[in-house]
């Protein structure tokens, strides 16, 4: 049997290899490559809307009226095109409404998207959805190794625990070789504008039935709701339940940083709740925490409709036809968007920076 390491030269080569791999995030930061705008296209297209995020942040220019930031619940819950049309009518000029998101939940991911966007584009208002109980654990976002790079958020990670910072560095070590390859050989697939838009809308889920069942077309006109009734009025609002499972310290840290970012850029900040299938029949909007306190912006509006109110005219057995799993299909997306558009336009008129 031959020895695993057969010479000093072999040992030195292995030491160099392992050292470079472990230190690659730092080395890439020191050398200054690849540029930030290459991070998103390295995200595998099947796992999210990264190419559209990259387009919205780095490629398209000019101010934006409203940017939605969140998880896949937001992608499948809010019809950006419809809101843009309605806002254009209200403003009497072409409005710009954009959305940034990746699959899976995490406030670190939402912080990153918001930071990159605000650094590059003047923004009238940010609307964000917050984690639901689908966010399990208290660790970096599942795709963090794709976008969280050494040295880019040095101040914002300073308040994290040693364990969290090690988790982040581990993600950076895991992702650094792929980011390097992505720089040397950019992903040509996502340069097709039509594909970027298709991936961004996750439209393949539009006409899908509930958990593999047949898709059933449903009415998409929501009940008439007074705009003020779908806006929270403080922690004790009877339409909202803010006493869910609290976030852990890691995600609460990023919640505070999101609040700091909104203050730093002086951008109006609004929250929205996209109802999941499990909320069927619920008379209150379930939130894990009272977010205005958590993020440090005590007077921000929260838009949300209890599922029982949203579907009050829908037979109970048909509510599932608005979902393909916990996400809305096109029935639900159109239904929910039409229900919230009036209040979004109202909040924009009161809060937005123009």
């Amino acid at each position, binding site marked *: *049997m*031959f*020895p695993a*390491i*057969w*010479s*000093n030269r*072999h*040992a*030195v080569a*292995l*030491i160099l290899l*392992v*050292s470079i*791999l*472990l230190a690659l995030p730092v080395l890439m930061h020191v050398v200054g490559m690849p540029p930030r705008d290459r991070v998103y296209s390295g995200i*595998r297209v*099947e*796992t999210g809307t990264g190419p559209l995020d990259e387009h919205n942040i780095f490629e398209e220019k000019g101010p934006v009226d409203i940017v939605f930031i969140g998880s896949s619940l937001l992608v499948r819950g809010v019809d950006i095109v419809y809101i843009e049309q309605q806002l254009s009518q209200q403003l009497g000029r072409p409005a710009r409404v954009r959305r940034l998101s990746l699959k*899976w939940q995490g406030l670190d991911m939402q912080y990153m998207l918001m930071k990159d966007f605000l650094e590059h584009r003047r923004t009238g208002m940010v609307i964000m959805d917050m984690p639901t109980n689908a966010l*399990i*654990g208290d*660790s*970096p*976002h*599942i*795709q*963090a*190794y794709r976008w969280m790079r050494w040295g880019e958020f040095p101040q914002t990670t300073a308040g994290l625990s040693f*364990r969290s910072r*090690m*988790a982040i*560095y*581990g*993600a950076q*070590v*895991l992702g650094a070789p*792929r980011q390097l390859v992505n720089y040397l050989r950019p992903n040509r697939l996502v340069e097709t504008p039509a594909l970027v838009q298709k991936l961004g809308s996750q439209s393949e889920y539009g006409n899908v039935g509930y958990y593999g069942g047949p898709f059933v077309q449903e009415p998409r006109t929501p009940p008439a709701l007074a705009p003020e009734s779908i806006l929270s009025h403080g922690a004790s609002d009877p339409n909202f339940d803010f006493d869910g499972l609290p976030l852990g310290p890691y995600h609460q840290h990023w919640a505070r940083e999101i609040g700091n970012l909104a203050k730093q850029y002086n951008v109006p900040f609004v929250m929205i709740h996209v109802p999941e299938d499990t909320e069927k029949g619920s008379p209150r909007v379930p939130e894990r925490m009272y977010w205005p306190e958590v993020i440090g912006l005590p007077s921000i509006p929260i838009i949300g409709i209890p599922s029982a109110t949203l579907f009050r005219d829908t037979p109970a057995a048909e509510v599932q036809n608005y979902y393909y799993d916990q996400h809305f299909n096109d029935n639900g997306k159109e239904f929910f968007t039409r229900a919230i558009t009036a209040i979004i336009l109202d909040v924009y008129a009161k809060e937005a920076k123009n």
Partner: protein
Amino acid sequence: MTEPASKTSPILVGVLFALCVAAITLTFFITPDSLSVNLVYQAF
């Protein structure tokens, strides 16, 4: 039959061993959710 003797410096072997321990330790901090979901989706 005698096995071929390694001619590697024990210090170099020690350094390499320490680096491997560091790499393995780092994996314990990476969320298991992240690894499993990405493997399922072949996102690597």
